[in-house]
């Protein structure tokens, strides 16, 4: 699943570690999310969307 996390994070001037701390996950998890290797759970997806004050649909995109 593609996502906009890296772009949103960079636009916000955050490091992966800072975003990870804000979302209460590890830096490796943020890295995996950004690279599309790991699809988050629904609660984490909502947390990401809430953090960036947007919606899940604006962040995560189906590959198909």
């Amino acid at each position, binding site marked *: 699943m593609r996502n906009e996390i890296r772009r*949103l994070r960079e*636009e*916000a001037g*955050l490091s992966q570690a800072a975003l990870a*701390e*804000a*979302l*209460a*996950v*590890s830096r*490796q*998890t943020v890295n*995996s999310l950004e690279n599309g*290797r*790991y699809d*988050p*759970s629904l609660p*984490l997806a909502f*947390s990401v969307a*809430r*953090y*960036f*004050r*947007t919606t899940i649909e*604006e962040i995560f995109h189906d590959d198909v």
Partner: protein
Amino acid sequence: MTTSEPQRTTRQPRTVSDRRFFLSCAAALVAVGLLWLTFTLAGEPDTAAGALVGGALVVAVAVVVRWRARRRGTADGGFGRTLLGAADERDKAILTASLAWVGLAAFLANAVGLAAVALGADGSTVIGAIEAVLLVVLVAVLLTLSRRL
């Protein structure tokens, strides 16, 4: 689409308290002590010594990982975070998938072990070998999934 300023309200990572960690270590040491006592009373001093050293080593590793995590502010890897009770959902997904592979490997290893015993292999040696194989599978799958996921 988005606002410029991210929302700063955040969740705190969940970690095991000092008290819980100390109690867990104490319980583990008591269990290791009971195991040592059981083997000693059963007249198996070598096995008793092995259980004592192995058990104490595991507890020591847990203490070292926690100490390092405390010093650095966070655990380095998923294994450390899992050990400290600070695993996030990806760490848990990796652990769950790894244990599933270990379960599958256990079926195969047990089948091979049964065949080996039927062909005359020593039972305790086979059981020990199966344990070792499962441990290797766990570590290998943990490392592989940590890189892929």
